[in-house]
């Protein structure tokens, strides 16, 4: 994973709440076995509408998306994160997020910055007035800064540290393999195993 320190880009205001991961990328687009190429599925149903914000020329090239509360709820599909990244987004700014989406984003290197809905409202107004204004998201300082707009954002310390360092979670855990083995040594014997395979008779 690439390290994330700061990012500067323009923003896309998505004035909708409860945008679940089925809306971010519908199930029919999930059939690839790679992590790329999902940009076609991003907001697939809404994109057919020429008025949909993603189709509005003033927001072309936006790399920061600002949705309403409860973004990324529903299905666990990490494809939602990949679709946003494949399309070019690096940062999501909002008030509330689905837990699994937020965790997936952290693993995949998409920054999820949390701010109050009141400030989201202000940011929406700001971006709609200045669609091409560059906005800088500074993970080190936890700030979002533009010309005439400034706020702090929230992110948990651990995710922030991993993003800043660009650390691979699996590599980190494998350093703890002794602790894992010790735990395995004290697991109760009655815990089930999938192997050897057992099955019930028919009927």
């Amino acid at each position, binding site marked *: 994973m690439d390290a994330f320190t700061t990012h500067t880009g323009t923003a896309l205001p998505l004035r909708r709440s409860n945008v679940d991961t089925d809306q971010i990328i*519908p199930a029919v687009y999930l059939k690839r076995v790679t992590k790329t190429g999902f940009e076609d599925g991003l907001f697939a149903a809404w994109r057919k509408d020429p008025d949909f914000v993603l189709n509005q020329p003033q927001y072309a090239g936006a790399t920061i998306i600002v949705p309403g509360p409860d973004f990324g709820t529903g299905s666990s599909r990490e494809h939602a994160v990949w679709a946003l990244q494949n399309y070019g987004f690096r940062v999501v700014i909002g008030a509330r997020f689905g837990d699994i989406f937020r965790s997936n984003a952290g693993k995949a290197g998409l920054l999820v910055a949390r701010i109050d809905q009141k400030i989201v409202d202000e940011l929406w107004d700001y971006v709609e007035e200045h669609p091409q204004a560059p906005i800088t998201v500074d993970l080190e300082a936890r700030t979002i800064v533009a010309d005439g707009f400034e706020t702090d954002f929230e992110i948990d310390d651990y995710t922030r540290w991993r993003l800043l360092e660009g650390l691979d979670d699996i590599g980190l855990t494998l350093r703890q393999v002794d602790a894992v083995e010790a735990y395995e040594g004290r697991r109760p014997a009655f815990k089930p195993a999938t192997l050897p395979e*057992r099955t019930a008779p028919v009927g």
Partner: protein
Amino acid sequence: MGRTLSEKVWDDHVVRSSEGEPDLLYIDLHLVHEVTSPQAFDGLRQAGRPVRRPDLTLATEDHNTPTLNIDQPIADPVSRTQVDTLRRNAAEFGVRIHSLGDLDQGIVHIIGPQLGLTQPGMTIVCGDSHTSTHGAFGSIAFGIGTSEVEHVLATQTLPQSKPKTMAVNVDGELPPGVTAKDIVLALIAKVGTGGGQGYVVEYRGSAIEALSMEGRMTICNMSIEWGAKAGLMAPDEKTFAYLQGRPHAPTGADWDAAVAYWSTLKSDQDAVFDVEVDLDATQLTPFVTWGTNPGQGVPLGASVPDPEVFAEPSDRTAATKALEYMALTAGTPMREIAVDTVFLGSCTNGRIEDLRAAAAVIQGHHVADSVRMLVVPGSARVRLQAESEGLDVVFKEAGAEWRAAGCSMCLGMNPDQLAPGERSASTSNRNFEGRQGKGGRTHLVSPLVAAATAVRGTLSSPADLDRSDALVGADQR
């Protein structure tokens, strides 16, 4: 101070904890399916890592699998690629797999309990948000993303921050014809789709204790629909009875040791939850959704709400958009809404008890001419069990289609989809826009309401068929 059930299970799985970092949790069971795993196996391959514990891992094919002609190759080439990829990965990494056509194949959340692999006091994960289903046995079970799937495959652990705790107390006796599904739909309408975010929820109270294991699974299944990290229930005699004799349930001395441990798995009297929510079971009625998220629901006897009644501006906007998408007018009685399709199945309501309850309602009736009804058992064994009881004949004689097991129209990755503009009454868990097919409109319902709706062609309860005798205790054995 005492500990809650979820804290006990959590504490028993901490491999390592360190100030300022998430706990490293050991995972007892990792379930895998074809949609969220290919990129994870690929990651292992690229890094040259093995699956650490194939013996704690189980794969099945469910999301893409067809429910007709299952003895033939999957027609859709992309679906076939995904399923073939899972088969190759399972073979390469030594993971047990239940493929289409296999006796133990089925929806991942149905086969875990069915095989006796889902037991109290475990940590269970799967690249699927409805993993919360397994919480009905007193386990911490939650959905994870593909990066985490890879993490668990490689390490059998997951770094996790300890969630907050919530109790949902459901007390009192459910009125006849009101089921577990109605409890959870009413709950989500009350607390909102984000109400559980950051919490592990313990469902408790006399109404929960009265439910069968199947009913309990229905409620835990939908925990994610109100944003909870996981939902669980204290195991009891019903839990133990359900497990005893299943293929992977412990036996002999192991059984005794397991039951002794399982019996400790309840929240202490003096345990304190961060939040408690109460729901009065005696006041519940059959519940149905009118909108495009599971929180947009009302009692079946109510009408489509006016968006203006919502206090929050974002809820008003969401309701207006939902009504537009659903092609509904505020004030229309829910009972007057006509559907084209009824879907009985999914990991929410695709278990044998659900099929029995629906069959009891539909027996002696016929599916309305304007309606197609799809009955999709949650697993191959549920299908066989139903057939041995003659339920397939009841459904077929009533004019319903009897299918093979899988996720099917719950998410429409296989050919079972709604056409644009079509409307369904569905026993699944998500009424999101396009979930069951592009432009499709979904009303979430219980199996009893699904069956009655199929007969009358409009959203209905069994009482509307004047067959109220069929439904007493349907979810409460």
